[in-house]
Structures are given as C-alpha cells and as structure tokens.
C-alpha cells in the first residue's frame, strides 16, 4: 500500500541530475486530479484484482487517493506521514513497520533525492517519440520493501507506474491525463486532505 502511494508521488518528482528537465517539469504542476486504474497481481489469484479511483495532488497538502469501492478508506499522504480515513470517520496512521517506505515517500515529497539514491539506483530510457521510462531498482543493501519502481510517460503526463516486490506480486497503475485545477474546494480539502 505504501509503495503504491510512492508511485503516485512520482507525479511530483522534482528536477535531478539524472532526470531530464521535461520529466521533472511534471512536478511543478499545480493542484490536479486524475483517474487511475490499479491492477494488483498476487500469487493467490490467477488474474489480477483491478480497482479504480481518483488521485488528487496538492503541492502544499500532499496527495489523496479515493477508491471507487464502497467503504474503502481515503488514503492521504503528506508531510505528517500516511493516514487512512475510513467512511465512518475513523482515522488510522501508518504502523511503524512502514517507516522505511514512508521515509522514501517523504524524501520524494520533500525533493530529497540524495535520500532516495541511498535505496534505489535510477535508470532512464527515452524513445524518439518523447516517451520515457524511469526505473528505480532497489540497492542490495536497502531494506525498502519494493524491488523495483517503474514510471513511464510522455512529455505531457505520467502514464503508468509499476511497483514490484516479486514478478508475481506487483501492482500496475494506469493514469488518465491529469485535470489541472485552480484550487481544490474547501469541502475537498476537508474530505481528501488533513
């Protein structure tokens, strides 16, 4: 779950020595929302479980995931960490074992690429038609839970994110083109952020 969120944070990856400016520019987008589809591959099932929802990103308040399923909690990630907000109002913080992943997320969120580079090696592949793929591969000495993070997109937007623990245990997320907003409404702030 934590690592899935990490993928969404890729939307706000800032400029880095190894990330081209055109990709890093995606991080400077203002408040936005996008539809997503998430395919969860697990060794337990013959076919992946697919869920859908809407992601909202606000540079000041963090990001929020609202799933389409009934009774699914809103997932909020911000500078204070991870929070699950259940439909009945209960709020659940991340357990301590998620600390390592949260630190990576926070590093992404705070544009702290030196911290990210402690856990992952980066590799960028660009094609002539402006498509690109940025792969983060876990370093052997890292205790991060996901082996590989793969982002792919175009100049305009991020298209897909793959988060893999093993080849059979992975999540693939496909994003629609983002809708840029002037600002989120106060109701949206209350419901989707903290």
């Amino acid at each position: 779950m934590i690592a899935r969120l990490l993928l969404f944070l890729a939307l706000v990856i800032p400029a880095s020595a190894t990330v081209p400016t055109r990709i890093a520019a995606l991080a400077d987008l203002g408040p936005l929302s996008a539809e997503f589809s998430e395919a969860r591959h697990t060794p337990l099932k013959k076919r992946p479980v697919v869920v859908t929802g809407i992601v909202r990103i606000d540079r000041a308040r963090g990001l929020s995931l609202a799933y389409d399923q009934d009774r699914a909690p809103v997932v909020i990630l911000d500078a204070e960490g991870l929070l699950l907000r259940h439909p009945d109002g209960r709020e659940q913080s991340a357990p301590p074992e998620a600390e390592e992943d949260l630190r990576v997320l926070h590093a992404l969120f705070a544009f702290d690429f030196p911290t990210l580079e402690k856990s992952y090696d980066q590799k960028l592949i660009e094609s002539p038609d402006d498509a690109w793929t940025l792969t983060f591969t876990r370093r052997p000495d890292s205790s991060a839970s996901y082996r590989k993070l793969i982002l792919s997109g175009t100049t305009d937007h991020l298209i897909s994110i793959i988060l893999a623990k093993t080849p059979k245990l992975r999540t693939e997320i496909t994003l629609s083109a983002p809708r840029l907003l002037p600002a989120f409404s106060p109701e949206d702030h209350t419901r989707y952020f903290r």
Partner: protein
Amino acid sequence: MIRAPSVLSVLSVVKKIRLPLLVLLVFVALCAAWLLSLDPRKHFTTDITELLPAAERDPEARLALSLVRERQARVVLIALDAPANTSASTLASAAQAFAETLRASPAFAAAEPLASQTWQHALGQQLHTHRFDLLFPTWLAQFPNPTPESLAASAITALDAHLASPAAAATADLLPSDPLLLLPNLAERASSLAPFPSASTSTLNSRVSALIWAETTADPLTEDGQQPVFAALAAATSNARQTIPDLAVRDTGIARFAAAAKASTKNEIGRLNLFALFGVLLVSALLIRRLRSLLHLLPPILLATLGAVTVTTLVFPRVHILVFVLGSLLSGVAVDYGFHLLLARRENESYRARLRRLALPLIGGAGTTLAGFLLLTLSELPLVHQLGVYVAVGITCGLAATLLYFALFPSIDLAPRRLPHLNVNFNLNSTRRRFRAGIFFALLALSAFGLTRITWQDDLRLLEYPAPELRINDAALRAAFGENNASTTFLTRGANFTEARTHWQNLANSTPAENPITSIAALLPAPADYAAATSPQTRATLAAFPAAFLAAAEAADFEPDAFAPFLADFTAYLAASPPDYETLLRQTTLALPGPLGLLVHDASDGVWFLSTQARNPTTPAATVVLPEGTVSLSGIQGLNTLFSRYRAAAAQLSLFGCVALIVIACALHGPRLGLRTAALPLLAATTAAALLTLHGEPFGLFHLLGALLGVCLADDYAHFAAAEGDTRPAIRLSALSTAASFAVLMTSAIPAVSALGATVTLIVLLALVFVETDLFSLHQPPRDQS
C-alpha cells in the same frame, strides 16, 4: 549534729525527686528499646497512596491504588535525541546498545527500543502461531449454523473483498497462511493497543529521536527503585554515546518524581526548621531575660515526641512520614504547658501549690486538645487517623513529662520582661464594654460572611513537592510515546480468566459500534466461543472444511496451491487436543511482550483487563452505566473525589470536637465563663477562615487540620487566660513563638504545608489579640490583689 540534718535533707530531696526521675527514665528506656527494634523501611513510608486506606470501600479508588502499586508504576520512558544528520541505522544501534545495558542491569526487568519493533514482531509471531486457538473461535462464532461449504464461501468472499482494499498491500505476505484474515481483522480491532510513536523528531529542534520503553525491577518509591535505576540509565547513556557522541537522553518515571520530592523535602525540612528556630529564639529574646533557661523546655517536648512516635508505631504497622511532619505541631502544643508552669511561678510558693493553682487551666487546655485529636482517630483516612493518635498521645505525654520534669527543677525562672505598653486595664467601664461588644459582633459578622464564601479544593497533588520541569519533560515524553488524556480507561475484573473475559464481553457489547473499546482482551476468545469451537461436534464439521475451502477458492479464480501453509497448519490444529481455556489464556498473557503485559493482571487475587475508549465529550464518563465487573478509572480525579469525602468526614469530626470543647470548658469553668472560654478559639478560627477566604484561598483538608490545631492552641490560651493572675506573659511567649514557627511553614513549596502554616499562624495571632485585649473578659485578678 550539724551534718545529720544536711544528710537527711539530701536524702529527702533524693527521695522527693526519685519517683519523677525514675518514671521518666523508665519511660525513655522503654520507648528507646521499642524504637531501636524497628526497621525504618518496614514501619515508615513516603508512598502518597498509603494516605488512603488500603481497605478503601470505593472500588474505583481501590483499583486505582492497586494499579499504582502494580507494574505500571515501574515503567520508565526514555527518548534518545540525536543530531538530525544521524542515520536511522546509527540511531537504532545506539538505542539497541542503550537497551542492552539496561537489560544487563539488575535494576531493570525489561527494556525495548520501540523503533526496533522487536516486541511488536514477537506479539505478531505469538498470535500467528496460536491463531487457531486464540482467534479462530471468534471468527467461527460469526456463523450461527456453520457447514464446511458455508464457511468456505464466506471466507473466500471476505478474502476477495480484502484483496480489493487498500490494506491488501500490507498483508500480501500473510495471506497464504491466513486466508481467513484472522490477523488482519484483529490488527484493525486492536490497532490502538500499543500506541506507536507519533513523530520521529524530538522536541529539541533539528534532532531525531529513538524511544525506549523500560520496566524497573524494584518499586520506584523505594531506595532500590531509584539510585540503582539512575546509575543504570547513566551507564546506558555512556554506552550509547560511544555510537553517537552528541546523544541527548531524556527519561521519565515515578522514580524521578519520588527522588526529586525526597531531596526537595529533605532540603525544605532543614531550611524550615532553621528559620523556625531562629524565629522562636528571636521572640523569646524579646520576651524573656534568661534564654538559657529555655533549654529546660526541650526535654518535655522531646519526651512528648518520643511517646507519640512510640505509641503511633505500636498501634500502626506502617506510619506515613507526613504524620511526623504535620505532627511537629505537637511541639507547639506541648511547649505551652512548660511556658505556663514556669511563667506563672511565684516567689515562696511550693511546686505542689503551684500545680494546684494551675491544675484547672492545664487540664482544661490539654483536655480539650486531647478530645479534639481523639475524635480524629475515628477518621477512615490513615493520615488523619494516625495524626489523631500521634497528637493525642503526644499531648498526654507532654503534659505528664512537663509536670514530672519541672518537679526536678522547681525553681527555674525564665524572668519575663515587663512590657508596660501591652498592659491593659481590665477594669472596664461601660464605654469600653460597649466598644468590645461592637468588635465582637463585627468579627462575628465577618466570620459569618467569610464562611458562606468558602470554596473547597481537594487535590492529592497539594501534598507533592512541585516539580514543573519534571512535569514538562514527562508530558513531552508521554506524548512522544502516544499517550494522551483523550480516552477513558476501564478496568474489568473476574475471579479467573473465564469470568473476567465474560465481563469484558458484556462491556464490549454495551459500547457503541462507532466508539469501540480497545483491550488486550480482544486478542483472547470469549469462553463460550472457545467452548463452541473446541466441541467434538464442531471439530467433526471442521474436518471437511479444508476440502470445501479449496473448492471455493478454485471456483473464485484463486490459485489453490497458494494456500498450502494455511491448510497444513489448520490440519495440525484439528489433529491436536485443544488446550484448557484458563491455561491457554494464562500462557498467552504471560508471554505478552513489552508494554502489552501491563494491560492484563493475573494473580491469586483474580484477573483484570484494562480497556480504553475515546472520550465522548457529549457523554460524561460518570453518567455511563457500566456492566457488572467493570469500573471506570478517572485517575487522579477519582482519588481527589475520594479525598473530598475524607475532608468532609474530617470536617464533621472537627465539629464534634468543637462541641466537646464547649462541653469541657463549661464543665471546668461553669456555663458562663465556660462559654466565653470556648468562644475565644472558635471566633479566632472562624475569623481566620473568613480572612483566608476573602483573600481568595480555596480550602482543603490541610486548612481544616490547621484550623483544628489552631483551635486547640487558642483554647489553651483561653484556659490560661481564665486562670487566676496575669497569665498574659506566658500566653504571649507561647503564641508568638508558635506563630513564628508556623509562619515559616507558610513559605513551604508544598501547598498543603503552606496552607497549614497560614491557618495556624492566623488563628494563633488572632487568639493572642483576643487575650491581650481581654475581648471575652476571661481575666481573673489574683486573689491577693482582689
């Protein structure tokens, strides 16, 4: 012929003094022998909870007291603050080194770095291993008439839903062995059982912190639970600084507060005694000429204290140290008899004749004080009860010791100074009578007005030495450990696990679904569910469950082979005989790691579980009707309510004491003079209370005790004032020296001691003014002058 009378006279003197001396020596020898045989650790206590009765009938107070004496009191919370650029692994190593040093010390029973999650993982491992014994009965109880097929269908449906939830990513590794979601569901129910650190940054700016939970071996209120603990913490700090040299360490626990209070109280007792002695000497130097003779007042005071300590320790197996602190007031009372006996001395009057002349005021003063403090022995509160015995015995010993001691030195003369400006003409004309009556009624009105405005404040913390820095540190550390005041705590009891768990289930069922309770009991099956799950009939049904589960999984597009770990464990569970319920729960709770072990208690006196619930601001805890076996713990507030009850009982006893005072005064002096004699201390006390109230001071138990003492002292002065001759020099010396010593108590940092000092000082000074002005017309001119 010349020698014979001298020898005879010496023999006669020896014969005369032999008996009093012999009595005093035997008394000292017996008391000393008893006191030397005592073990101070066993007989004296500084534990504030022992101020409340061990057999308190209020269940909440009884449980609160037992909790204070339980393992909870031995917890030490520690934060290691490292520079911000410290890596997580370096900080974890330092925390591990710190914890290992503590564990190696005999002063600590346990020490766990929270960030290492060792104990959380240990709990997870324990629950996973015993998930079918502990969690499966509760899961099974959801289905009223289970068949293998219906159970399998329900399990697969729930598993499918879980895989589509955001929580699935965190449980992916667990599901092959737990497709019934026993552990994920439990984790949600019991997520707040052990609060996790809320932040990794410390209160020190730009530093990162590691938190360590530790438990000491010894009671923090004892010496073994303090200095060895601090030494181990210092050693652990040194070890951890080998990894991070700039490491800062904060810790908190009852031991810190107890040690600080002990040191501060020790310093304060020394300071107060020094200033009190200086004050008494100053007053004495102003009022008498032979200061050296004052030393003769010491033996009766010491004998009174010796008798009081001896009898109190004979009567009570454990005596709180505050009894002796408050009992120091005994000196102020006992010294009065000496003052009066010495300052009323007349030339050429035998000691026996002097005693006959002073018998009435001495017996009157001592008798009323004795009656007042004897009534306190009826109190349920150990402090008040013990104080009543201590002062009552002390007064008796003090009076007896004074009479016996001065029989040995009948000619001692303190040589009082004459203070002409204080002399009052006692022959009143009608104008003066009217003026005094006006003053009397004005004071009466002031008292009545002030007493109607009294507010009460009953707080056990008034007895503590204030330690604001420790409090701030404690609050910061507890917040970092996730503790807060936004929840209500319940304690559910039973004779054994079966009864306690049944009572807890009733509590859980009575709480609203939107605000459930959290408890370690949620990890344990209910007795009925366990019995149902382990019955032969259920076991026979479950034998077909693995096959039904595989079929349902296959039909729902699952990979059946993925559940091999679950099927192997479940088959083994069915093949083994189920453990006895009490044994299972006892073994499980005994193995609970880290702080979780504090949430359940299993001993010969029964079993209890602690539960918490988020406080509902619209429903005060006091209005909720709790099921049988459960009580709400409101912490110090609950004990304060109890303290209020004791204060009210002490006030009632004090009122009876006032009635006794009036009765004794009337019996000794007749109704007219008796009522005037009794009116002096009562008006002094009510006027003092009114003045303190108008000054804005809320009243508590210690004002009440101060008032009782003040009334006893003022009553002594009234009886002395009603004696024949000018007794004012003795009263003046006694009152001013008492006021000087109690005024020093007003500077105490302990609110209770300060309150006591203020009340006594004010009453004594008012009583002195009443005597000096003869407001109650008590003065009896000497017979030879009339």
